[in-house]
């Protein structure tokens, strides 16, 4: 009871509460059995797909029109699904086990709970995403020159010293973190892991599929600018920037808006509803 009062009524209640909530969320995420495996799977699958694509791509002659950085970061498309599961389970597991009630009794300020979850999750995904992206780029750097991506064909080895490549790498890490935050918001709103995962994957995957069917060029472009995955992954492009439907950082901005909207809606629902 004393703890509760200290959290709720002290002069620096908000900050103390957030710090304790962060610690609590970190403990929960750290000690949940699946977390380590999911993180390993996310990094492993990302690097594996990236390496496979780098090994399969070929550049037979100069000016073969390929984007080496984007190619070697293809694995992000599968990695995002695993990070989405991690994010969904961060709150979905609490709803399925009833733990959420304990959490909300311990930290009655519900937005604080969500903010703490988002911060801890975001940090973990940023760290794991960095490993995955660096691994993918390393695989590309090692494998691509063997398939004709040589300096003679206009492809110097992938390096973070190159501005666009650095932007693609940093952007991809941020992309993964934003997908995780989007998933956290959706899972908080729907309160069921399976449904939440399906909604997130639907949001990510249905846009690129719909785009293939829409023949009207106007709508085609708009859908590409709107879709969280199609817009967000624009940050990976390092060639042909003029032809992109949306500029790299603006694309990531669209995904940020999706994530923010999902978290705000989740915060509102979390405050208004019974747990």
């Amino acid at each position: 009871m004393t703890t509760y009062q200290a959290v709720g009524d002290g002069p620096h209640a908000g900050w103390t509460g957030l710090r304790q909530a962060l610690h609590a969320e970190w403990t929960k995420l750290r000690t949940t059995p699946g977390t380590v495996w999911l993180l390993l799977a996310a990094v492993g699958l990302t690097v594996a797909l990236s390496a496979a694509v780098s090994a399969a791509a070929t550049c037979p002659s100069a000016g073969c029109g390929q984007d080496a950085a984007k190619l070697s970061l293809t694995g992000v498309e599968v990695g995002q699904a695993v990070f989405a599961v991690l994010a969904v389970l961060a709150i979905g597991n609490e709803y399925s086990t009833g733990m959420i009630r304990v959490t909300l009794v311990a930290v009655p300020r519900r937005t604080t709970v969500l903010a703490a979850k988002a911060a801890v999750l975001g940090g973990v995904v940023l760290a794991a995403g960095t490993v995955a992206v660096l691994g993918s780029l390393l695989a590309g750097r090692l494998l691509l020159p063997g398939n004709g991506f040589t300096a003679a064909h206009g492809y110097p080895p992938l390096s973070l010293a190159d501005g666009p490549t650095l932007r693609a790498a940093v952007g991809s890490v941020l992309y993964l973190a934003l997908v995780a935050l989007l998933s956290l918001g959706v899972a908080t709103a729907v309160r069921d892991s399976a449904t939440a995962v399906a909604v997130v994957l639907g949001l990510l995957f249905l846009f690129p599929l719909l785009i293939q069917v829409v023949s009207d060029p106007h709508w085609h472009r708009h859908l590409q600018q709107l879709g969280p995955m199609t817009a967000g992954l624009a940050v990976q492009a390092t060639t042909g920037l003029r032809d992109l439907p949306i500029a790299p950082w603006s694309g990531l901005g669209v995904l940020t808006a999706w994530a923010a909207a999902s978290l705000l809606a989740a915060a509102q629902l979390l405050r208004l509803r019974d747990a």
Partner: protein
Amino acid sequence: MVTGSHGVRMQDDFTGDTAGSPGAVSPESPRWLRLTRSGDTLTGYESGDGTHWTTVGTVRLKGLPSTVRAGLFVASPDSMEVTDHIGGASATGGPTRATGVFDRVGLQGSWPRGTWTGTGVGDRGPATSSFDGFEETGGSFTVSGSGDIAPAVGGMAFGSGQNIERSLIGTFAGLIALIVVATLFVTAEYRRGLIRTTLTATPRRGRVLAAKAVVVGTAGFAAGMVGAVVAIAVVRVSGVRIHPVSTPTELRVVVGTAGLLAVTAVLALGAGAVLRRSAGAVTAVVVAIVLPYILATASVLPAGPADWLLRITPAAGFAIQQSLPQYPQVDNLYTPANGYFPLAPWVGFGVLCAYAALVLGLAAYLLRRRDV
């Protein structure tokens, strides 16, 4: 028509294509062609010597008016050079020109007396077509021009309208929803502990799983059937021109879509029983089925790896929805991005079925071995 290296062919309505006798046709080895009409039925004949005729095919053109135009044509498709890059594959090329010589041209029946006139046929599509004139010397015609007259193929040259599988794009949304339902059908029992009651009531665990698979498969098939029929009907009513396909093909696409949903539901059920966690199972199945399709068709991968993805992953099953056939005599980019799968429809579906059987088998094995 006669072709340089694909023998004699009879084509109709940009969809029909019947092959006649094979073999190269050249000035040294010419062919005789004859087209006869009876009502709205056209019959094509070919002959090597002008005396012995064989039927190539018969076509019924509904609502053919009593007065028709007939003529001689020459076609020459654009040259094409294919390059593979991150946007999939692309083709560059330019127009080519062909000249055909027709002799001993004859007409039987009630044709009006008059002279032949020359005109360019058709103006659609990216192909640069032109009519370069014709010459008549003593009953022999020499016609020159460029452009192609051929059955419609997917991709840039497709022209207006849509192929039927595009009106079934909603399959993906239905698939994701169904995967959730099928997974929860078993994982919800684990979460609530109902699985213990179920297995107490029916101790033969394989039987429980089989019963669940039958129920979820049937539900998926029924939902897919209704969904596909309604989707195609809605698109037709809304006025979008759907490229005509034969009734067996349309039936295969509709029933195949239902089958696709049914088998995916069984796969999701198996994954749920193996993993016993709903979020993990849903993600695994969605990623295994939808992601390879996106990677292969949404122009992320070069055509080679894209083909392999649609051979070895469960996404191969989407081949059952392919409605456009590949024509050997029509140059085109037959790539996944243009709607062409590397496997035949039922073979691709078989790959998906094999995955479902494998996962369901693993689920049955684990269900028997594990405590609940």
